[in-house]
């Protein structure tokens, strides 16, 4: 078998390489299928132990309660596919949540309070993208700087106070549409749209080309620098959308962000099959991986296992996924 698994999903094939549908599906979406299977196995096992696991309420908790991580991981997957990394997204979400909540409490229209984090997120990340693309600073360095600036700025500006008295209409993550929780619908819609966009548009395909081999991409006429800025801005927009779900889930907005949120988001992308070296992976994988974490977390409580297992298991999954990726690359080279 030729090791084609980590080439971009759409590619022309010669007759010699034509494969069966199942095999092709597995070779293009191997990691996604593994993650999905793991979710299904967990659901079956835990439900056998405690049938309440698949109660409607618990499904809502699993799928909806972590949707903001999945949405942030969509942007992160694009960044990593392009061969970059962003370790500042957690702090960014904290800042954007404070901006959004402050506007909502100050009496601005609700739509404005929702739009602001998306626009500001795009602007901040466009600056990061410009520093990466034109000043040629490695993205890990730029975003580490951004992490400190955003986190420090957040604490200095808010002084640690929390935002309360949010208008009820603002709290969209608590609402339902057609019987489904809004965060779930947002997560599914954005994942599908982003997956189609990355697979079928020239822009989306170019991200794989840049992440896979930047020099070759440049040679084929892809404007790498402009695309890098654009993908960071798009990532900022997804961070803004994630913020809306994050900030409207509870009645108070804290001036702190969940510790290690950026790592959770990066981990979701990586376990979902996005190669940390760039060039491969899909946002379907990152969303499935987020659901897998949520399922494991809930399952551990349902079967009375210490949450320490969650960390151990996720650590193991990262190592296994990255190892498998490395071995595939070595096999190809």
């Amino acid at each position: 078998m030729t090791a084609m698994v980590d080439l971009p999903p759409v590619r022309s094939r010669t007759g010699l390489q034509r494969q069966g549908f199942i095999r092709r599906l597995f070779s293009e979406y191997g990691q996604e299928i593994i993650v999905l299977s793991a979710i299904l196995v967990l659901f079956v096992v835990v439900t056998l132990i405690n049938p309440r696991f698949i109660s409607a309420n618990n499904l809502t908790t699993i799928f909806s309660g972590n949707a903001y991580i999945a949405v942030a991981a969509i942007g992160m997957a694009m960044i990593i596919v392009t061969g970059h990394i962003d370790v500042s997204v957690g702090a960014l979400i904290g800042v954007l949540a404070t901006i959004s909540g402050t506007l909502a409490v100050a009496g601005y229209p609700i739509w404005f309070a929702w739009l602001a984090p998306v626009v500001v997120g795009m602007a901040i990340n466009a600056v990061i993208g410009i520093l990466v693309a034109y000043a040629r600073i490695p993205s890990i360095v730029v975003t580490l700087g951004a992490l400190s600036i955003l986190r420090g700025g957040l604490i200095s500006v808010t002084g640690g106070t929390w935002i309360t008295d949010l208008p009820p209409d603002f709290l969209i993550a608590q609402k339902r549409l057609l019987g489904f929780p809004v965060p779930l619908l947002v997560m599914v819609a954005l994942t599908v749209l982003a997956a189609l966009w990355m697979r079928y548009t020239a822009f989306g395909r170019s991200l794989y080309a840049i992440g896979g081999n930047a020099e070759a991409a440049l040679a084929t006429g892809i404007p790498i620098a402009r695309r890098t800025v654009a993908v960071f801005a798009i990532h900022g927009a997804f961070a803004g959308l994630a913020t809306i779900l994050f900030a409207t889930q509870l009645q108070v907005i804290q001036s702190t962000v969940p510790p290690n949120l950026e790592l959770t988001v990066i981990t979701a992308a990586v376990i979902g099959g996005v190669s940390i070296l760039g060039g491969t992976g899909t946002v379907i994988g990152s969303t499935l991986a987020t659901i897998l974490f949520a399922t494991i977390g809930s399952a551990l409580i349902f079967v009375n296992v210490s949450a320490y297992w969650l960390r151990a298991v996720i650590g193991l999954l990262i190592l296994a996924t990255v190892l498998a990726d490395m071995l595939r690359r070595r096999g190809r080279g």
Partner: protein
Amino acid sequence: MRNVVFSALLALSFSTSLSHAQSAWTGADDLPTNPLACDATPATPAAADYDGGQPTNAPDRKGKTIKVVDVPKLVGIGYFNATSKGIADAAAEMGTMDAKTDGPSKANIDDQITLIDNYITSGVDGILFAANDPVAIAPVLKKALAAGINVVGYDANSTPDARQWFVNQAEFNGIAKAMVDSMAAEIGEDGAFAIVTSTFTTPNQARWIAEMQAYQAKCHPDMKWLETVEAQEDNILSFNQSNTLINKYGDELKGIFGMTSVATPAAADAVTQAGKCGSIAVVGLATPNAMKPYVASDCVKSVVLWNPVDLGYAAAYVLRAAADGTLTPGATSVSAGKLGDLSVINGSEILLGAPTIFTKDNINDFDF
């Protein structure tokens, strides 16, 4: 290569099912506990020798107006605004204390040390502090003692010999009693409850849980302890974990304890959004501001914390007594104005008293 991932996942489902029989971790530490009496009898303070420091050649300040500076961890946040207010209240009441608050704008130990050093140079009679770091602040406080300045800490201690006294806002067993008593009052003596904490290894939370376990076993033996879950300092995770507890236990779950000011409002939100207000009680440690929406909607009835206004007030009275020479090593209590007599514990600490339980009636009086 996929085998690696497969085996990891297999190991996961294996370990998950294997550990099924294993009982849930309570999140308590292994240190000895000292549960309080079930009624309101205060604890008998354990005898301990005075281990504080003393000012060198302090002038006779008895009855004279003294100049005091209060250096909290940081200024500009509700909590320390409240302690400053308590100090100002006490100073106004005494009429013989000229108190001002001056602290760093962020909780930074270096800024705090510089600030205290400047006040030693400029000359004050007394220093009140809440340390950003118990060890790093010690040398500058010792310098103040050596200059004859009275030094009293509150909220966050220094090493004992760097100050004369420390006003301790709450002992672990006092918080534990207030928490468990509030829960028992809300869900009854045979109710079942679960706990949402930060991590099992966070020292304060582990200590509180251990004391809660001991007190519950002693005074509310029929209550049922379901399990403790971790939620880091993460509000959405706290919300999800609370929801999972509600989903798992259904009607059996009558109460949730929140062990941090992040977990408690998130647990209250989970109960609110699940439509379980009134059937699942939330009792927890939290700041009043974070809990106001849930208390106002009647979903939460008891929020446990100490009262920072009283804490500052007590600290000012302790400093006055130390300056007057009425509070000396070996004393067992000190008179603190409207708070009455406060007892000396652990050698050189003064216990503020039972924690405050914030309810609908008083929560709006507090802004922190």
